[in-house]
């Protein structure tokens, strides 16, 4: 675990020396800030519910860019050879990389706390329970999407390819519930698999154990597969 944190720390620092972290954070804040003010002005409600839903969509688009570099670049440049010949376990490498991406997203979310602060300072009285559950849901959703991105990055040594793979998987998981409208028989199953439908209850202030377990197992599953991919890379 100590090693995973060391790797995460380096990776997080690498984010902030390249423009990627700034560009992604800036884009995220511009879009979420715009949405926050538009929703606030039109609805005149001290609620972040609408914003939360929109942030999940933004996340779908930016997560592949946050994770594409993680393992693909190490494999392209060959630095993975130094990493994997140090006394480091494969899962520690994968976990460290994932934690760095999650850390970057946490930094981005931290900025959005100003929105709640504004609601409060402007005299609104938001439902704090909903705000907390909304943020909890975002963190869980982000951990699942970023883990899938980490897996995509393990699969290739090309960052663009990694981003495309991540986006394709995420989009499929996002839209899988929509197929329920047509395939009515399997609707409940398909919606249960959907990464976006699972978020609804969080935004409305309900934290269901099933949803938490869903996101956590998706995260664990993707990271497990990424570790296996790195392991099999040793055999190629």
């Amino acid at each position: 675990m100590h090693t995973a944190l060391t790797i995460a720390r380096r990776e997080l620092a690498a984010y902030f020396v390249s423009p990627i972290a700034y560009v992604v954070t800036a884009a995220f804040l511009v879009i979420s800030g715009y949405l926050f003010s538009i929703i606030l002005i039109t609805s005149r409600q001290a609620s972040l519910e609408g914003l939360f839903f929109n942030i999940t969509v933004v996340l779908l688009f930016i997560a592949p860019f946050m994770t594409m570099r993680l393992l693909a670049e190490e494999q392209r440049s060959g630095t993975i050879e130094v990493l994997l010949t140090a006394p480091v376990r494969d899962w520690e490498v994968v976990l460290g990389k994932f934690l760095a991406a999650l850390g970057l997203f946490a930094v981005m979310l931290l900025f959005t706390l100003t929105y709640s602060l504004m609601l409060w300072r402007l005299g609104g009285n938001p439902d704090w329970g909903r705000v907390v559950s909304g943020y909890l849901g975002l963190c869980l959703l982000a951990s699942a999407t970023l883990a899938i991105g980490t897996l995509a990055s393990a699969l290739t040594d090309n960052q663009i390819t990694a981003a495309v793979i991540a986006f394709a998987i995420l989009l499929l998981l996002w839209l899988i519930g929509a197929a329920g409208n047509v395939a009515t028989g399997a609707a409940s199953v398909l919606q249960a698999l959907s990464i976006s439908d699972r978020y609804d209850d969080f935004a409305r202030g309900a934290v269901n154990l099933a949803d938490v377990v869903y996101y956590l197992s998706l995260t664990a599953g993707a990271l497990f597969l990424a570790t296996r991919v790195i392991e099999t890379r040793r055999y190629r």
Partner: protein
Amino acid sequence: MIEAQGLVKRYSTRTAIEDISFRVERGEILGFLGPNGAGKTTTMRILTGYMPPSAGSASIAGHDVVYDALAARQNLGYLPENVPLYPEMSVVGYLDYMARLRRVSQRREAVARAMEQVHITDRADDRIGKLSKGYRQRVGLAQALLHSPPVLILDEPTVGLDPRQIIEVRELIRSLGGERTIILSTHILPEVSQLCQRIVILNQGRIAAVDTPQALTARLQGSQRIYLEVAQPTPETAVALAEIPGVEQVQAQGQGVFDIQHERDCDLRQSIAALVVERGWGLLELRAVRMSMEEIFMQLTTQEDTTTVIEPDGEIPTAEEELVTTS
């Protein structure tokens, strides 16, 4: 210290190495020599635990590289080919990171010492991406030395360096030998004969020879050769030379140049010189021809016929010759 037994690495379409076995004792410097694609890097990657062998086993300081991987890796420093580094990090930042990964106690001292060893202390805060090839190579070496490992595995440590840097790196490697066990690969032949106590010559994934540089040279010289050049050769020169006891074969190569093969363990230069002077042929040059590492290497790795001695082909071999005299 390092032991490899029957290492095999197969890829789906080809076999990279086949039945590689060797031992390296504590404090020894072993050189891997071989043409590109001979399996040097593959063997090193197996030893470092980067990839497991398809068959066979290897151990570093008594730890199996597959089943006791972390302990084996803790005992080795590795400089991969092409020295992959993170360009955005500073030298000291990178070394500190690697020291953390290796769980080096007293990191600050270890990083300072490693930088001192490879003379990059003055570039400590520079970004790695801005360093020249020579400095990057040193950063890679410093990384391998951080945790003072008993075993060092260096894949082409001098490739891409200028002559002065090459000498510096060789000096460094030599100074590390003795206390550390080192395997290095190279395609620069004089380098192995200078640095290594033993050489493993790899060819097409197999070991073609393992021996000391001296023994390899001696072993391959079934008979000794002498290069002779005279000013005024006569038709009977070759015949007269062939009659000297011990001479096996004389080849006239034109313009008064003769290639004389003689039995091992006898030095015929004196008698040849005496004969040439006596007959008044005008001695221009006389020297023993030793096979250079290049020639040995060519012999061991050229497939057609590994027993024929390579002809000088009118060109004078460059390395390890002994000039006796000119008239």
